């Protein structure tokens, strides 16, 4: 029993097709609320955590413990005038933030969430190729960033977009190879290992223990995907103003900002799903979602710690790092996974 069927049962008096229609709509609404609340919570946690690490106090004026600060900030961003450049490429300029945000939301839609108490499975997308769908969805985000950079007609934005492309090209290949080695290992355990949910639920021990190199490569790739400090080449605010989002203000900038924090959360969830066992654990048919959230939150805190303690890497060094270190490591990991698959698991 999953959340869609529960909702469909609730709306059954409206008839077969109408009940499914309403169930899909309400599932989408619940899901969007979950995503937005988790993004707001992420930004709040980040600000408090950063403040504590820097021996400050952090937001504490709006609401109890500053809990309403982020809502106040969001209201401010919505109310702000959107200043747009005169020489922009209009459609691309306006579409770019939405592409980033939609890529993020679709990424959240596709990943499995495990079960939660009597509601049952919270997973939204049931597909046999959801792993491929997921990587396709998060590949939308850099398109939005590149469009934003090029359509702004601003030299800093263009440099930011170019750096973003250089970064994406150098970490995507190792990331995909380490994902392939996971699928390869899981193919010995199940028939539909491209299904994200089976890939997670058939992990008899977390794959991160079997493939530590793969975990390292994938974590680095997820950090680079969310583009925060060690790899924030495309934003690098001390060099090129704000990178691809230089010319954006108001809610359009807010979408980029939320996209960044959302991709940190999404990346942490995906790493915990693929490598740390995700929603597996004792009583996982009741509390699987809680396990996933706890693992995700711990990874988020580690990501923030990395963000706050490391300096930015230079562009050429990152490309060297991607092609000369991450790629060989991921290939070694692939060979190791093949050895494990043929020699141990099967």
């Amino acid at each position, binding site marked *: 029993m999953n959340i869609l069927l529960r909702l469909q049962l609730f709306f059954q008096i409206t008839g077969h097709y109408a009940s499914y229609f309403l169930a899909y709509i309400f599932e989408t609404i619940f899901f969007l609320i979950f995503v937005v609340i988790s993004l707001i919570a992420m930004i709040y946690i980040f600000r408090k*955590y950063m*403040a*504590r*690490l*820097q*021996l*400050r*106090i952090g937001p*504490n004026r709006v609401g109890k413990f500053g809990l309403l600060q982020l809502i106040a900030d969001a209201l401010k961003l919505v109310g702000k005038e959107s200043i747009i450049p005169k020489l922009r490429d209009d459609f691309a300029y306006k579409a770019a933030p939405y592409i980033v945000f939609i890529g993020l939301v679709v990424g959240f839609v596709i990943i499995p969430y495990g079960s939660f108490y009597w509601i049952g499975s919270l997973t939204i997308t049931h597909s046999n190729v959801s792993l491929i769908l997921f990587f396709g969805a998060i590949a939308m985000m850099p398109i939005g960033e590149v469009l934003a950079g090029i359509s702004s007609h601003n030299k800093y934005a263009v440099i930011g977009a170019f750096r973003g492309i250089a970064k994406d090209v150098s970490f995507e290949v190792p990331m995909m190879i380490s994902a392939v080695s996971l699928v390869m290992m899981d193919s010995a355990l199940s028939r539909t290992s491209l299904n994200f949910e089976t890939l997670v639920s058939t992990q008899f021990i977390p794959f991160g223990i079997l493939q530590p190199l793969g975990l390292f490569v994938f974590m680095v790739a997820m950090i680079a995907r969310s583009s925060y400090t060690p790899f924030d080449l495309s934003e690098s605010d001390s060099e090129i103003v704000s990178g691809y989002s230089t010319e954006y203000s108001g809610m359009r900038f807010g979408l980029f900002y939320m996209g960044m924090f959302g991709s940190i959360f999404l990346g942490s969830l995906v790493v915990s799903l693929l490598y740390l066992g995700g929603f597996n654990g004792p009583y996982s048919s009741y509390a699987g979602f809680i396990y996933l959230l706890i693992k995700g939150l711990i990874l988020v805190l580690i990501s923030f*710690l*990395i963000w*706050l*303690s*490391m300096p930015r890497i230079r562009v050429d060094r990152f490309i060297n790092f991607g092609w000369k270190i991450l790629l060989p490591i991921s290939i070694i990991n692939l060979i190791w996974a093949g050895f494990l698959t043929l020699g141990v698991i099967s």
Partner: protein
Amino acid sequence: MIEVKEPKRIPLIGSLQGMYTVFKHLFKKPITVQYPEEKAYTPARFKFRIFLSMDDCVGCTLCEQVCPNLSIRMIVVERNNPHNKRNLYPQVNFGTCTVCRNCEEICPTEAIYLTHELETARTKNNFFYSPEELEKTESEVKK
């Protein structure tokens, strides 16, 4: 040419050490002091506002003479004080006072002295304190 031996470096160790150093700060107390609600520590010998005990003042004008930037002016206040026949009392301008504490040092009767009180901000265009105001605490002056 002198060859400098670089120490053998293990990859990622430096980054992990940095992360550990940053993480340790999570368990330390914040340095920030939320000023109006919490008061920061003030050293014991720190003094700021000048107080005056009008009964002890003899109107000798020494404080006016010793004040380096003319913050103290003697003014006449009609008051029945047998020690102070000329009815001269100091009026202090805190806008220019540099807290040099010369007046406190020179005063023969210890009528003028400095205290720990330091929050003198108020909605007024000057910082002149009349002799009567110098006798009161800051909260009474603001009323």
